[in-house]
């Protein structure tokens, strides 16, 4: 406050450049720290156990990826696990997109009795901690005979409150009411309005919700841990964790499996990080 000058802060330009440089270095250092574990995961996936723990450790890719993959497939039905994860994630995504866009459409474009109460109830369910219903959730699935069944992982969450909220926000802000009226005059049923008119208009929001759902489903650990009890029904996170508990951990194989499991996420991330981030954080500002 003592160095008040009318136009700019009193610091000389040299000092400003230095602090800028320091901030830049710090950010770069942080980014390296963020990436390093991923890098070593891929590097370790291509080395044998002995090389991973040699001194100095490998810093560049080796040629043992095939060997590691062979070891991995010896220990686990890994292709099967990968398929399980893929199948569950895709179905979960498709169902979520359908039910959430439909629900969001209902909340955004109609006036009906009890709407506000129902929407408040929907938002309130977002506050329920997941662990609170793990046990009874398991018991219900057991009663339904859904233990070891993929549907236990894609049906219960298929119409999630977060997805409906996201869709409602997008539809309310992007679809004019006149469009509904026009379609009705043309003789469209309400479902056809949704299916033929609204759905094509909300593809950006669908893409965002689709990615979020796919990622969450792909990464779901606790849910799968509760439901999937046999190694042939394991999803990828369960399979990888089960390798860890083996007496003699095959580190190279473990890292190879981990690397493979992360690739779909990295691909989604590379193609759509902006959109993904906006979708995930949309509750922060608009909510």
């Amino acid at each position, binding site marked *: 406050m003592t160095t008040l000058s009318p*136009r700019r*802060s009193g610091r000389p330009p040299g000092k400003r450049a230095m*602090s800028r440089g320091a901030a830049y270095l710090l*950010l770069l250092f*942080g*980014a390296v720290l*963020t990436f390093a*574990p*991923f890098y*070593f*995961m891929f590097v370790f996936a291509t080395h044998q156990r002995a090389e*991973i*723990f040699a001194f*100095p450790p490998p810093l560049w890719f080796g040629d043992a990826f095939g060997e590691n993959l062979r070891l991995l497939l010896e220990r686990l039905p890994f292709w099967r696990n990968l398929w399980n994860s893929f199948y569950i994630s895709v179905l979960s995504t498709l169902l979520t997109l359908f039910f959430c866009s*439909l*629900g969001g459409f*209902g909340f955004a474009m*109609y006036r*009906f009795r009890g709407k506000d109460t129902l929407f408040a109830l*929907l938002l309130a369910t977002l506050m*329920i*901690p997941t*662990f*609170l*219903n*793990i*046990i*009874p959730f*398991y*018991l219900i699935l057991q009663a339904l005979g859904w233990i070891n069944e993929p549907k236990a992982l894609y*049906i*219960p*969450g298929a*119409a*999630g*409150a977060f997805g409906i909220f996201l869709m409602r926000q997008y539809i309310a802000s992007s679809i004019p009411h006149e469009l509904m*009226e*026009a379609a009705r*005059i043309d003789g469209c049923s*309400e*479902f056809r309005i*949704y299916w033929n008119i609204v759905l094509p208009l909300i593809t950006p929001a669908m893409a965002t919700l689709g990615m979020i759902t796919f990622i969450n489903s*792909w*990464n779901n*650990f*606790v849910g799968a*841990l509760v439901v999937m009890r046999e190694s042939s029904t394991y999803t990828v*996170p369960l399979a990888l*964790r089960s390798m*860890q508990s083996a007496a003699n951990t095959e*580190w190279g194989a473990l*890292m190879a499996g*981990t690397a493979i499991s*992360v690739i779909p*996420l990295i691909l989604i*991330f590379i193609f759509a990080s902006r959109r993904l*981030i906006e979708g995930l*954080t949309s509750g*922060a*500002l608009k909510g």
Partner: protein
Amino acid sequence: MQSLSKTATPVRRRPSWGIVQRRLAPYLFISPFFILFIGFGLFPIVFSAYLSFHEWAPASGLGNMRFVGLENYHFNLTDPWFWKSLANTAWLAVASGLPQHLIAIPLAFALHTGFRRFKNFLSAAYFLPYITSSVAVALIFFTLFATNFGLVNQLLGWLHTVPVIGALFPSEPINWLGRAPYIKPVIAFVVVWRFVGWNLVLYLAGLQAIPRVLYEAAQVDGASTWQQFRYITLPLLRPIMFFAVTLTLIGSFQLFDEPYVMTNGGRTLAEAGQTTAMYMFRTAFEFSEMGTAAAMSWLLFAVIGVLTFINNRVFGRSGLNPDT
């Protein structure tokens, strides 16, 4: 247009199919959520409350539930392992929760003010750990922190040989995941690593909502970067801070994946690295004490509820910007 659609249906007729389906449609459209919620959300919670007053092992069948009143709650509240797990959870919540924000806020500020060109790229880079599976992340660090020749120990060993500063670093490899004093800091480190980017992105969104004019006015008045940060950014960031801290609080007290994987499913060092969520899970699915576990989940829920309430009172409303 509207008047046209009204006159198109003669008044004397019963409501046509078009009107009926129009009235019913929204209820049908939103019904999947409510059906699934009642079946897989509401009913489980009610049942969990019921279960918490009973003694029951799932192997004995549903008919063999025995009403025990508050015994499950009493058992948990006098169980040293429960308190230990709660202490672990609280420790981890502080040790992993605070740094997340203390790192993310300045990083977001630096990105926002200084690096407009790389902002998107860098924030995305920091965000990557958040979308990576917790199990994959925990396994990567499980490897990096391995005792014998894990990368972290190798690095420390190498630093030990450096003159002058070498004495600061241990001469022996540290059993990070096998010794009680180390396991919690390692878990906290992994959690921080995973969530800094998430918070960074939240804060960036918050910073972008602050009108640029305020900074320009402050610059005209000669305020330094620090003063701008202290008197403009921090106060206006408070709503987002509140949101981010609440999420961290709720998330930290349910911490499960990372400690579960880092301690190998509780097989090593369960008492030192075990969170309450993990203890609850093991009580239910390894020890088959469903009633005790259900009671524990309600106790943990109460703890989270109280903390969220305190957080609301201390940090919430008063700081909210009336304009938003």
